[in-house]
């Protein structure tokens, strides 16, 4: 499923009927599958498969271009969160002691803080823009990784092969990177897919509330926002991106599950 979305995102410039930014004031709020009036560029009027929004932009095109943005943001946020979270998890699990205490405290603090407030504060401080949004999203998700990785590390640490490696003379970095970390990857992929899904949804809600990306950029979140005022009349403006988000999230989750099964070195059982 995800492949479809990725394919669409990559091929956006080729398949979108038109640029997402063209504003056709004459064709505002057209329902799906309605033709717009004829004009210079399109002698028969354009067929807007999914309708247009309040200022006449083609929904389908925006949807397609939006996929790029949402996927990119979601993926980047997931990656950043994974890196930070895994690092913290491994270090606190492996070394224990005061490092573990500090990171535990950090995690608790963050979890008890309402995310939206945190987001508002940070976005205000960093200004808007893609990079800021990605950072904020990463911040929301690193905790998931940290906890899971830490508990995995704790259990793997006592396995025979880790001790055997120690007996062979392996140092901490070898133990971590060759022995412990690769064996934590399984559940990690499930967490990763889950948090990517979470990132996409969060981005959507951030943009929906106006906090996230610039409203003119075609991301699914901003599209949801645009359609807010027209939910009853021009329902397609919000519904289409909503469906797209759901579809993508489902695809991401399924991919994560599939990856985990594949990675299990014991093969299918």
């Amino acid at each position, binding site marked *: 499923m995800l492949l479809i979305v990725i394919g669409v995102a990559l091929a956006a410039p080729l398949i979108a009927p038109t640029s997402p930014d063209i504003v056709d004031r004459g064709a505002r709020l057209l329902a799906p599958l309605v033709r717009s009036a004829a004009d210079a560029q399109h002698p028969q009027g354009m067929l807007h498969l999914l309708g247009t929004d309040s200022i006449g932009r083609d929904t389908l095109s925006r949807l397609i271009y939006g996929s790029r943005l949402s996927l990119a943001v979601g993926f980047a946020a997931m990656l950043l969160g994974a890196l930070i979270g895994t690092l913290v998890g491994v270090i606190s699990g492996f070394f224990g002691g005061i490092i573990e205490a500090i990171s535990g405290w950090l995690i608790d603090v963050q979890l008890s803080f309402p995310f939206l407030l945190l987001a508002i504060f940070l976005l205000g401080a960093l200004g808007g823009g893609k990079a800021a949004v990605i950072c904020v999203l990463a911040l929301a998700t690193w905790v998931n990784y940290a906890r899971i990785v830490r508990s995995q590390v704790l259990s793997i640490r006592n*396995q*025979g*092969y*880790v*001790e*055997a*490696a*120690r*007996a*062979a*003379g*392996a*140092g901490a970095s*070898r133990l971590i990177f*060759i*022995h412990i970390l*690769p*064996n934590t990857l399984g559940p990690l992929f499930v967490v990763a897919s889950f948090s990517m899904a979470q990132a996409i949804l969060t981005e959507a809600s951030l943009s929906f509330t106006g906090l996230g990306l610039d409203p003119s950029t075609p991301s699914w979140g901003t599209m949801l926002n645009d359609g807010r005022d027209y939910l009853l009349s021009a329902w397609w403006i919000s519904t289409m991106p909503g469906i797209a988000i759901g579809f993508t999230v489902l695809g991401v989750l399924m991919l994560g599950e599939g990856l985990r099964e594949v990675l299990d*070195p*014991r*093969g299918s059982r």
Partner: protein
Amino acid sequence: MSTGPMFDARALTVAFGRSRVLGLRAIDLTIATGETLGLVGESGSGKSTLARSLLRLNRASAGSIRFQGRDITRLQGTPLRALRRQLQMIFQDPFSSLNPRLSIGRAIAESLIIHGLARGSEIQERVAASLAMVGLPATLASRMPHEFSGGQRQRICIARALCCRPQFIACDEVLSALDVSLQGQMLDLLARLKHQLGLTYLFISHDLRVVQRISDRVAVMYLGRIVELAATAELYAHPAHPYTGALLAAIPTPDPLIERARRFVALPGELPSPARPPAGCAFHERCPKASARCRTELPPLADIAPGHKVACFHPN
């Protein structure tokens, strides 16, 4: 190389955790070069802890360990890592002793890589040689652990321990997870390797039958102390410590007539918790011969015959 024993531990004490529970209490032990020392005792008696101490996988809280005359008690960093080449260990559970993500060839070569003992194709050659020594074809080096049975995995672990040509190998319950018929083969393999490569073994097991077959001397442990130490034949024929006697009596013999006629009285109770050791001799709560002295005084490990030591006020 010194001419003394390979290992010389004096008053070795190891404590765990914040509450400083003693896993080993003032152990005095020597292991001669080329011998196989059997170590028996129930779980919780400290056998694995002792093996790990010798390998410096844990830190002694008191006492000293000397390896070939050199004090290794507080060794750290690079010299400790260099030491690891000489001392290896094989563990009990063949299923968790191998990293499921590494091919067995890579796992075997680990010590070679860490210590820079070989490069490139030489690594493959040495891995193949190790596999051959344990009776496995070299073509299996690229396979993953889950493709092998328990007995084969244990052999792979032996190959891994041998690869860096250590002088000493601690075998910690290496046969416990294997079937009886496999145990015999594995013991033969270990004995053969010892002669081929001039190794010294510490052989830990709770199965006294197995220990008898491979050991030159046997030490019996109880709650972190050595309570008896003697040559194998002597220990099994004339056990002096009541605990040793009970252990030997508990071994089932494959003869129904003997077994049923035995009127066997099992040793009551269980090993006391190391966190709350009894005063005096740790065994007195379960000992049929316990006297007032045993309840208050700790019997020292002393000779009752040449080469036969017991820690008991009323040895047999």
